[in-house]
């Protein structure tokens, strides 16, 4: 398994600002992903964080709103830009180590509230 640490664990932000969430994995992983979970809903995949190249975004998510970095095999950031109350969600980082059992693991999430 992999231990995934996210920070901040929660934050309250003003409309129009941005928030950057950091995700640190305790070992090198092949794949890292960012998910959003809106209140009472399932998890929606935002993007695949690619090491050394631009992230691959799912339909409905764009780089200008959710810029992602992945400078190495253990670290990624997700920025949620130009915040609005509709961005209030839990954002989760996940990782997958290819060649192992192929299981997907999650951090504890970052709970964002936009006022």
């Amino acid at each position, binding site marked *: *398994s992999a231990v995934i640490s996210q920070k901040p664990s929660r934050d309250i932000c003003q409309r129009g600002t941005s928030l950057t969430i950091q995700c640190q994995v305790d070992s090198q992983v*092949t*794949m890292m*992903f960012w*998910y959003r979970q809106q209140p009472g809903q*399932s*998890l*929606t*995949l935002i993007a*695949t964080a690619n090491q050394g190249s631009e992230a691959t975004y*799912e*339909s409905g998510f764009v780089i200008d709103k959710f810029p992602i970095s992945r400078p190495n095999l253990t670290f990624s950031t997700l920025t949620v830009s130009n915040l609005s109350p509709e961005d209030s969600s*839990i954002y*989760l980082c*996940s990782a*997958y180590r*290819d060649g192992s*059992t*192929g*299981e*997907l*693991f*999650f951090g*504890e*999430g970052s*709970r964002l509230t936009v006022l």
Partner: protein
Amino acid sequence: GIQVEQSPPDLILQEGANSTLRCNFSDSVNNLQWFHQNPWGQLINLFYIPSGTKQNGRLSATTVATERYSLLYISSSQTTDSGVYFCAVESNTGNQFYFGTGTSLTVIP
């Protein structure tokens, strides 16, 4: 994209009862996982089960990939089993995992 539907959406059980949760998916997949999201929001891996049957204590899971469904069995339920159960499937065109709609389970004493 792959559609993943879970049933039932909500379930209330008396402690000690058994239940079966179902996950249907719309296309061939590489892998399937079951997760439990506890009331504090933490996602806990239950099973990695692309096919066949696995058991872990009171929980077991079966995936029939050719028929595009998976089942999670909970026996002798306990109040600590409460939470939301998700299945997630890995697309066979990449490594992305897509989550189902979830089953919210409440076990009452």
